[in-house]
């Protein structure tokens, strides 16, 4: 069996940041493996440890910088990686449909039995790529999976979908399938020193649009970002200022005044 895991390198804004044009200035961004994808990687690696002959391949749409994040996934047990990028992709404003076309081409190339993605990317937060891809490639799917049990013949999975308000939906999904993984599904491992060493010699294959049989139309998007700003705060918060002990003193007064602490 082959499992494809989509792994995104996400950007996080520093506490103090500035917006330049329609994005946060590059110097204020820090990059990391998307939290949800960390759980997806762990799920894939656990399956490869449970069953014989399971290959785990990761796929990333991202610039060369993303290889640091990809190496992290390789160090955690992904067997090899694919990175999709070229000048046309770099110039594009990737929407869900564009990502779907790119990943569908990767699926065509790799022919996996199971695709694991995260529920959402922490930075752009579409929460849509996995299910869109499933529909495109004709796989069955389940979104927001926080419990996963596979049949031993790997023909299907019994999953829980985490709904709102502490309710979980129990669903059976036939393979091939796309599952979008929710945090808390498992305990993502830290990369071991040995893993990190091994990752250095694992393959990261680079694909441009032409390598995937696509052209620039594949990343053309009718959705364009026209502005970014810090939300006008509706806050009328009273800030408690001063050194920590002064802040704590004022806070203690507030709590006493609200009557939630005796004394």
């Amino acid at each position, binding site marked *: 069996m082959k499992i494809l895991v989509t792994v995104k390198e996400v950007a996080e*804004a520093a*506490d103090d*940041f500035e917006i330049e044009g*329609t994005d*946060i200035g590059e110097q204020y961004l820090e990059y990391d493996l998307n939290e949800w994808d960390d759980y997806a990687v762990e799920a894939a690696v656990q399956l490869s440890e449970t069953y014989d002959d399971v290959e785990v391949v990761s796929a990333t749409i991202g610039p060369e910088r993303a290889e640091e994040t990809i190496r992290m996934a390789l160090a955690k047990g992904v067997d090899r990686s694919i990175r999709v990028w070229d000048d046309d992709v770099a110039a594009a404003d990737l929407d869900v*449909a564009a990502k779907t076309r790119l990943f569908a081409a990767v699926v065509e190339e790799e022919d996996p039995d199971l695709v694991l993605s995260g*529920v959402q990317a922490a*930075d752009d937060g*579409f*929460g*849509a*790529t*996995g*299910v*869109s891809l*499933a*529909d495109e490639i004709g796989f069955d*799917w*389940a*979104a*927001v999976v926080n419990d996963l049990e596979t049949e031993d013949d790997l023909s299907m999975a019994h999953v*829980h*979908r*985490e*709904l*709102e*308000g*502490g*309710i*979980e*939906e*129990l*669903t*059976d999904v036939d393979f091939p399938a796309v599952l*979008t993984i929710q*945090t*808390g599904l498992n305990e993502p491992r830290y990369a071991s020193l040995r893993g990190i060493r091994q990752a250095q010699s694992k393959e990261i294959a680079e694909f441009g649009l032409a390598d995937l049989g696509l052209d620039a139309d594949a990343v053309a*998007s009718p*959705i*364009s970002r*026209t*502005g*970014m700003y*810090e*939300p006008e*705060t509706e*806050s009328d*918060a009273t*800030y*408690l200022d001063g050194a*920590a002990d002064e802040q*704590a*003193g004022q*806070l*203690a007064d*507030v*709590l006493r005044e*609200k009557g*939630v*602490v005796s004394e």
Partner: protein
Amino acid sequence: MSDVLAVADHRRGAVRDVSFEIVRAGRELADDLDGDLHLAVIAGDVDAFADRLSLAGVDAIHTVEAGEEFNHDLYAGATAALFEELAPTAVLMPNSVNGLDYAPAVANRLDLPLVADAVDLAYDDGLEATREMYGSKVETTVEVSEEPFAVTVRGGEWAALEERADVPVEAFEYEFDESASGARVQGFEEVGAGDVDIADAEFLVSVGRGIEEEENLELIEELVEVTGATMSSSRPIVDNGWLPKNRQVGQSGKQVTPDVYLAIGISGAVQHVAGMKGAETIIAINTDPNAPIFDIADYGIVGDLFDVVPALIEEFE
């Protein structure tokens, strides 16, 4: 045609709040487009749901009678079929967990641009939508140059439309056989019961990822002890197994309405806020002055929890 098709959300026999909000979002967009608002009600007791959703501003309700509960193949298929029939300019679906499970498929199948998790919509010669990015630290505007288009609507952003009216209801025929579907719902399970019910607490001290290490939870436990508060948390603390699920506040945890909610090292992600914005008084301690939690706080302390919490414990010792 310049109509809007919106899809209602319901679960286990009850219409979910977002349905009343999506009707408002849909009505406003239909007004901008000078078109009609069609509402789709799919699966379950559709006649009862249609009655609940007979709201002023809805021009027609289309019921799809098939199955008891949500199934994404049914929702995606029926929504796409209604789209073909009505040829609207916009399809609005909720960004609920079920929305996450079918809306992207609808957009892909119909080849529509998808604006996900919109918090505001305006139409003037084309759609301009507002979304959030980077964990709600910034808002962005996006323009959509193609029509028709699909949008998923974030819950809690539009005021519920409650005014009732007589809305024509039409049954829409859509053949569906769940046993032939590749994903079959087997049932539901309630999780998160346990020793304490944080929903009953008057004073919640809630801890988030800012606490960094499991050992550091002792600090919060001490604060809870000296103040007589109840401890709750954001999701990562529960995901890490540091606290049981019944302590989680938020969309997939508990909704709480204490007199005082003290958020320590919690950023204020939308799924967290969904569970605590109803608290009487919200107080936040966070090192990041831009953390979205301050937008809903009544009192804010910009500071390091490892300095402020020990000092606060001293106040009550």
